[in-house]
């Protein structure tokens, strides 16, 4: 059920990428798709009534493995979120240059002005 809602969020972003004409709208849709994928990966590592993967000196490691959530997806999603920031900055920079060149954000107008 939660996975389905996550997929629905992804599909909303995909809808924006496929149907919108505004370049900024397309960038926004890509950002939303990124959020959906990150959320899904974190959900895969969640354990029912689990605790955050921060260990204590007093707790035993083998017992902690029975209660902790999976730390591996969290580490990888941390990386993915930061890379998403860099990619968004690059996309927005390209959008600003396109606006300066063509005077619009409309992708169909840009295709007409090609050459």
């Amino acid at each position, binding site marked *: 059920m939660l996975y389905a809602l996550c997929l629905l969020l992804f599909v*909303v972003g*995909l809808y924006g990428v496929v149907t919108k004409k505004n370049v900024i709208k397309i960038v926004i849709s890509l950002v939303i798709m990124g959020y959906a994928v990150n959320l899904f990966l974190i*959900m895969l590592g969640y354990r029912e009534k689990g605790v955050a993967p921060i260990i204590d000196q007093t707790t035993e490691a083998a017992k902690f493995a029975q209660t902790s959530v999976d730390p591996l997806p969290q580490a990888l999603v*941390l990386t993915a*979120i930061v890379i998403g920031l860099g990619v968004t900055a690059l996309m927005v920079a390209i959008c600003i240059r396109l606006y300066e060149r063509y005077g619009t954000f409309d992708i169909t107008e840009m295709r007409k002005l090609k050459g």
Partner: protein
Amino acid sequence: MIELLGLLLIFMIIGAIIAVETRDLLASVICVGAVGFGASIAFLLLRAPDVAIIQIVVEVLVLVILIRATISRDLTAISGDREFFGMVVAIVLLFVVFLFGMRVFEHLPPFGQPAIETLAQSPARVYIESGLRDTGAANLVTSVLLDYRAYDTLGEATVLFTAILGALAILRKKARKRKEDREEE
């Protein structure tokens, strides 16, 4: 807990639909902010505090970048979508994508059962059991990031550096070659 997460996800979906559909670009960017902070709260509920913190930081930066791109530019919003036939085809294809995704979820373990439980030799189990002894880091996420998979983090820093370098190169006003040409003239 699951109901709360579901409500949060529905809130995020509504925010995403408004962000995609609204005419005003600034309102659209603000709706993306709502979606991102909802994602941050969801990470907190899923017991991922590090990811929640980094999500808030990145979200603020993304909003600043997007507002920088949209404000005082093209305030006359673009009206009208693609042609009607293209819209219908797109929606049908998205529905097919959704159905295939649902079929994939049938093969996944149910929500709340991570792969550590089903796989005996999953790497995450090794990280949890020997992470504190091997690396001395109490936070297992940082022990994975900065010790077990440190080369991944180095690659991440490289990608980030390249992306920012590319953005600066694209946004630079004057090319260097043109300046030399002017001096020759």
